[in-house]
């Protein structure tokens, strides 16, 4: 072989994978903005107690339905509570519901889907028929059923929302694994002597990641909206605790007389959902080595 291939040559240190993903993400403006919004939301969630100008639960009936003004930036609601403070207070609840419920569903769904897809046969049938049974019932109805069994409260709402979204992840992972496990590189991984777990986690799952990431970020949005729906039905957050969906639900009667009571919590939800979706899109591109270098 030629001299340039000599072993003495110093090894070029490649960019670490994380760095490369980060650079690629930085090139995507939308994703960067989304990341900024999410960092901001997390900041608000952590330091909410220092940021709220008023007690979110302090009701002053004399000040009900004030339009946005210098004193109350987002106005006040039907009970005279400061909407700005309530939205800040609700950030932590909505974010944690979204992140925890999705993480839970993602983990359980991925494991179940991987086992079903990779091993096939009876295991597959048992797992996937259970998933089908869960999918057969409308998710909000199922969540209500879980809530009925678990009791009221935000922590239980998180569990219920997480549980009902497991089947979606399980299905996505199983479907992808079914096609990937037949691929030559998985066969090649077996040929070099890997065991099943290494093959699933190291060789198959990274290939499923892009579709999972997209689904998970969409899932965060769904989880936020589901919490809102549960709150609206009086099952999630208990009044007077401020939660975006609950605020929206309770203000819905005033949509024409005092639209700002709905617009601001609605905007908060939309902004969060949008940010997560945009970040998901960016992440999908950044995680795929093929589109990363373009």
């Amino acid at each position, binding site marked *: 072989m030629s001299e340039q291939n000599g*072993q003495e040559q110093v090894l070029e240190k490649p960019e670490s994978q994380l760095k490369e993903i980060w650079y690629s993400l930085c090139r995507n403006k939308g994703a960067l903005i989304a990341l900024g919004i999410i960092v901001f939301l997390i900041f608000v969630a952590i330091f909410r107690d220092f940021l709220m100008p008023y007690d979110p639960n302090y009701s002053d009936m004399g000040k009900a339905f004030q339009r946005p003004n210098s004193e109350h930036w987002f106005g006040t609601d039907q009970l005279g509570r400061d909407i700005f403070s309530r939205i800040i207070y609700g950030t932590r609840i909505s974010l944690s519901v979204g992140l925890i419920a999705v993480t839970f569903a993602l983990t359980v769904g991925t494991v179940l889907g991987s086992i079903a897809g990779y091993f096939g046969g009876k295991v597959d049938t048992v797992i996937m028929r259970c998933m089908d049974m869960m999918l057969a019932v409308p998710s909000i109805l199922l969540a209500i059923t879980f809530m009925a069994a678990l009791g009221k409260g935000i922590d239980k709402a998180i569990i219920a929302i997480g549980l009902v979204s497991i089947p979606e992840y399980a299905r996505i992972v199983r479907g992808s694994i079914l096609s990937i496990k037949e691929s030559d590189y998985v066969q090649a991984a077996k*040929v070099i*002597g890997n065991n099943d777990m290494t093959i699933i986690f190291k060789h198959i799952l*990274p290939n499923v990641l892009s579709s999972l990431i997209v689904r998970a970020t969409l899932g965060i949005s769904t989880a936020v909206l589901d919490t809102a729906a549960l709150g609206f039905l009086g099952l999630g957050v208990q009044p007077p605790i401020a939660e975006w969906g609950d605020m929206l639900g309770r203000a819905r009667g005033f949509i024409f007389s005092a639209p700002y009571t709905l617009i601001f919590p609605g905007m908060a939800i939309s902004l969060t959902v949008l940010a997560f979706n945009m970040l998901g899109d960016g992440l999908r591109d950044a995680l*795929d080595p093929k589109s990363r270098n373009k």
Partner: protein
Amino acid sequence: MMLEVKNLTTEFKQKKGTVRAVNNVSFSVAPGEILAIVGESGSGKSVTSLSIMGLTPGKVSGEILFHGEDLRKKSVKEMQDIRGDKISMIFQEPMTSLNPVHRIKDQLCETIIRHMDLSKEDALKRAIEMLTLVGIPSPEKRINDYPHQMSGGMRQRVMIAMALSCHPELLIADEPTTALDVTIQAQIMELIYQLREKLNMGVILITHDLGVVAESADRVIVMYCGRVLEEASVVDLFANPKHPYTKGLLASIPRIDDQQERLYMIRGMVPNLADMPAGCSFSDRCDFCMDKCRQKMPKLKEVDGRAVRCFLYHDEEEETE
């Protein structure tokens, strides 16, 4: 003998019934020997190799002796230790045989760390050594590439580097050159040829390219519908093919010095494995077919150090299977 396969039969259960993809196949490979298995698509070549690796979903029976130990009796864990270390395999599709989400480096080092007791740095050194061996220019740069940044020929070289990184005693090359263009084909075959000299490894070369066989193999097995029809040294086979099927195959190779209007072809189609003709599986397409060919399957008969499964070379009628 390093590898001895005795009466290997692999069956697949299907709705229509059981299909025998590999039927009573026996052969052996010595260290440093290249054994070619040739045959049409669906003749059971690839299933044979996967059966040796213990990776076929079908039901395998018979003996696969590797250094006298039956691979079929090994536990899952023991087989995982043998795969990639003692026995390696190259696939026919270099474009899809590497995982798109991992760097070449990680895929190469994975095998090395899995089977050899090496640190990460030493494994990386060894990976670069292997890439140099298979002739990839500036390997210390290319090792950081992802598979999609490489051409087909390069990927096949990486696959070969991966397969050889632990100095296997036996390499199963399942159509290693089919997806590559002719110049790369020649390079890859030359590489396998050199490496078996250097490392004294046995090679099972699975192919349907008789040109490749003529150039590189020591012995040849001709398979048809899961059975061995003929086995001979490469010189004997090309100089004096015995089985009508082998003759047909050799006659089908177009020659550059021949002025032919039409190319020769073996008439008919390969029968469906689920619906085999009675008697010899080649009887429907054979120019020398006799009555008994349609009733009985001839035995693989040894003549002058080679073997052929055809009634044309049988003295007595009794030699059937």
